């Protein structure tokens, strides 16, 4: 019944699939990542050590992984969505039980060779599992509240675990794309209104559960100048760095705030500050434009997909990507409180780079398999 083209796409060889990969998007990701490499080179005072070199290696490995993820049949991802989610959830519990302590937060699972951050896995797994769940519902079913209980559980279980670590940033990065997936799947708008109103009402209660340093971050965000040598230092120095960059910047490797260590965490969370100090307002706008291009590209891919699963996966991932970029940049500009969220593709960090490229592998996968049809009740149903 399906068109011959879609069947053929489903049965494509790996080589054929590689020709279908959206190389324009790959190139765009490479450009954004290169901005990161040059910034890291500058952050190290003009050296590939210790950051830029390793970041390039990770990106290279990540691209290979991304392509591998891209050419796997989309239906396989559909099939293993629950399994993947289950494993990620187990790992999160494992972190809770046996995780090593670092920075006052249990986030890492030491697997000997690599340190695995299960919350990164969960971000992808949750998008997959929600996409699969909503894929299986009709528009009418989505309209009924009791069909929403299960996906809400799927979302809140890992979010609660991550928040308990405590990693507020990652919890947001789980809940926000999930909410967007609900929204795109067609959940009625009034339900969002109810949830948001409820959340606002619960805010004072939730405040009680925040750790002291998290509360402090919010206080500091609201008025950084009250504590210029303490927690407000980051924001103040970041704003000084940005502002002093001016329109054209201080020049590559000439950022006094970054090069002289006034700017904290310049290779990770505050890399956008460093980049904009040296490249100025113009450089910052170029980087933002690159992000917009990536997002438009990703959304175009989502719209082009014939399966609800593919659309929801691609949109979920692009939404994550956007939230990452927005929160990070908003934070360094003093628009949002300091939460430990890196700038996607640019900040130094192995796990984030890997999971991000794997996620883009899924987006490209959706493009490669854009015409593959997945039945409402799974693969058997081809109607």
């Amino acid at each position, binding site marked *: 019944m399906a068109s011959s083209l879609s069947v053929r796409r489903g049965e494509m060889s790996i080589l054929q699939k590689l020709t279908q990969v959206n190389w324009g998007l790959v190139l765009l990701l490479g450009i954004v990542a290169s901005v990161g490499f040059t910034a890291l080179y500058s952050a190290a005072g003009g050296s590939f050590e210790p950051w830029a070199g390793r970041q390039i290696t990770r990106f290279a490995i990540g691209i290979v992984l991304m392509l591998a993820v891209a050419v796997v049949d989309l239906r396989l991802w559909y099939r293993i969505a629950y399994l993947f989610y289950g494993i990620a959830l187990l790992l999160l519990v494992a972190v809770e039980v046996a995780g090593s302590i670092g920075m006052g937060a249990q986030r890492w699972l030491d697997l000997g060779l690599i340190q695995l951050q299960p919350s990164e896995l969960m971000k992808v797994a949750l998008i997959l599992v929600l996409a699969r769940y909503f894929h299986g519902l009709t528009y009418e079913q989505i309209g009924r509240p009791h069909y929403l209980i299960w996906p809400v559980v799927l979302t809140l279980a890992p979010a609660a675990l991550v928040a308990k670590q405590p990693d507020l940033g990652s919890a947001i990065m789980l809940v926000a794309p999930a909410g967007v997936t609900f929204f795109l799947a*067609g959940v009625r708008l009034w339900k969002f209104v109810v949830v948001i109103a409820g959340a606002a009402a619960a805010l004072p209660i939730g405040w009680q559960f925040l750790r002291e340093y998290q509360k402090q971050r919010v206080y500091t965000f609201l008025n950084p100048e009250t504590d210029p040598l303490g927690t407000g230092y980051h924001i103040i120095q970041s*704003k000084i760095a940005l502002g*002093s960059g001016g329109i054209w910047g201080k020049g590559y490797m000439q950022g006094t705030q970054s090069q002289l*260590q*006034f700017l904290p965490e310049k290779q990770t969370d505050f890399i956008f500050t460093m980049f904009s100090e040296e490249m100025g307002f113009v450089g910052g706008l170029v980087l933002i434009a690159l992000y917009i291009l990536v997002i438009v590209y990703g959304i175009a891919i989502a719209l082009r997909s014939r399966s609800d699963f593919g659309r929801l996966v691609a949109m979920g991932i692009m939404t994550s990507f956007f939230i990452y970029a927005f929160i990070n940049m908003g934070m360094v500009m003093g628009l949002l409180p300091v939460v430990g969220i890196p700038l996607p593709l640019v900040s130094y960090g192995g796990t984030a780079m890997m999971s991000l490229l794997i996620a883009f592998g899924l987006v490209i996968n959706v493009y490669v398999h854009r015409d593959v049809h997945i039945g409402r009740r799974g693969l058997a149903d081809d109607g």
Partner: protein
Amino acid sequence: MSALKRENPRTKVFNRRAALLLGGQLGLFGVLAARMYYLQVIESEKYKVLAEENRINLRLIAPPRGRVLDRYGEVLALNELNYRVVVTPEQTGSVVQTLDVISNILSLTDGERRRIMREVARKRRFLPITIRDNLSWEEVARIAVNAQDLPGVAIDSGSSRFYPYGPDLAHLVGYVAPPSESDLTGDPLLELPDFRIGRTGIERNYDLALRGRAGNSQIEVNAAGRPIRELARLEGEPGHDVALTIDLHVQRMVARRLAQEESAAAVLMDIHTGEVLALASSPSYDTNQFSKGIPVALWNSLRTDHRKPLNNKAIDGQFAPGSTFKMITAIAALEAGVISPEQRVACRGWVELGDARFHCWKRGGHGHVDLNESIKYSCDVFFYEIARRTGIDKIAEVARRFGLGQTVGIDMPGEKAGLIPTRAWKRATIGQPWAQGETLVAGIGQGYITATPLQLAVMTARLANGGHAVIPRLTLDQINERTVTERPQQVKWPSCGVSPQILSLIQRGMRDVVNDPRGTAFKARITEPDWAMAGKTGTAQVRRITEEERRNGLRKPEQVPWRERDHALFVAYAPVDEPRYAVAVVVEHGGGGSTVAAPIARDILTEMRRRERERGDGTTRVAERPRDRPL
């Protein structure tokens, strides 16, 4: 069928909501761009300033303090390297904590901690504050090892002032000390930890010239305050060396000679140029102890010593000049015409005025004496008589012309004016009319009259140089605030307005005092040919001798308590025929001028002669000084 599927409500909702999301995301990116525009374009200037303040640390570079040299370039004061540990408040989280850590290494006393905390409160936060000076190598090493526990703490090498001849020039060169709060004039140099300001003597008088100008260095620092590189440097100006007119060798000899007495002062000067070759006060002290921080006990003992070692008695000791004043009385009488050189006065040991009896120092008297004899023998009765005839106001007028009764204007702080009384002065200050008896006493340099050793030297110089109002000075160069220029070679001093005939009478009298076998200072004469000196003895009473005491016979000096003994004075110049040097010696409570003070003056002038020989037989003048002194 596929078209139908695309048109199903889910797809429509999805597409609509995806477009909505994209729009929302673009909008939020727009917010970011607007925020960037605000920070990087609108507010950019403000943040540029803040970034510069972050990274640039202005450091003052202390200029080396100029040296003090003698007239031949011998170094009298210089800078010596020492190590100290400093803390910069803005670079350390808590000064108190840092001091706690450093206490384990250096064991700071509570007093030291209080001083440091006071300075922390007083100084700008970027300026380092000395924790301790003069560290030993071991202490330096222990602080360096613990450097990572001591943020903002650094070892600094600085210089401290060193006076190679300590006590020999203590009053003259003076010493330096950390500026007190009242010294802080806003010159940031004064706030540097090792900065020392001249407290006394030459160090104080020429402090600005010696100090130099602070340079500064703009240093780029990182967030930890660690200097990265120097951005700009403004070289300071090292302090000027100050070359004194003092001859170190003569000065040291004078200082040592005076140190043999309980308390004494002497001034040796060139009668033509006014250059002071030696100026000393005894007892003295070691100025080096001041530059390293004087122990309190030592300070207190110096301060309370009744012989006043801290005072420069050569310029601030005010003594009754006694008979050394008689030249002034004689000139006044001759000018007033109340006596002729040949006129004789009968001395029978005392003279009566009203109810009071005024005694000559010689019981039984000198018989009939003329002017020359009266100077030679220092006959008091003769001077009582001519003083009575002349009147106090005329005597005071002459005294002032010879530099008494006012500061002579030497380039040194702390000079006292002495006192030359007049009728008007007594009415104004004591509120009583002048009594004629007081004129008599004044005629022999007693009573209200006081003078400093420096004034007596100046008076003698003016008598010896033909009545030119020479002014003493201590530096070879002309120093005005911070500028040092060469002094004009020939100075024309104004005249004291005394006729040559009168002066030569006085000079003959002074010559005979020393060289006539019956002169009061004959025993102290200089036998060396061409170097005979002329002079005048003085023995000044410090308390009134009662008639009863006179009847019972005067006590021997050894029987009198030190504080009640007479001051011994002697003024002299040499060589007698072509005078060049004048000297004044005062030995406080030393006894007789002829026996105590005159030999010292002789030794000083003899030493001056020896130095002239050593440096080229009498040709030693200003011109000989090497022009290109090493900096």
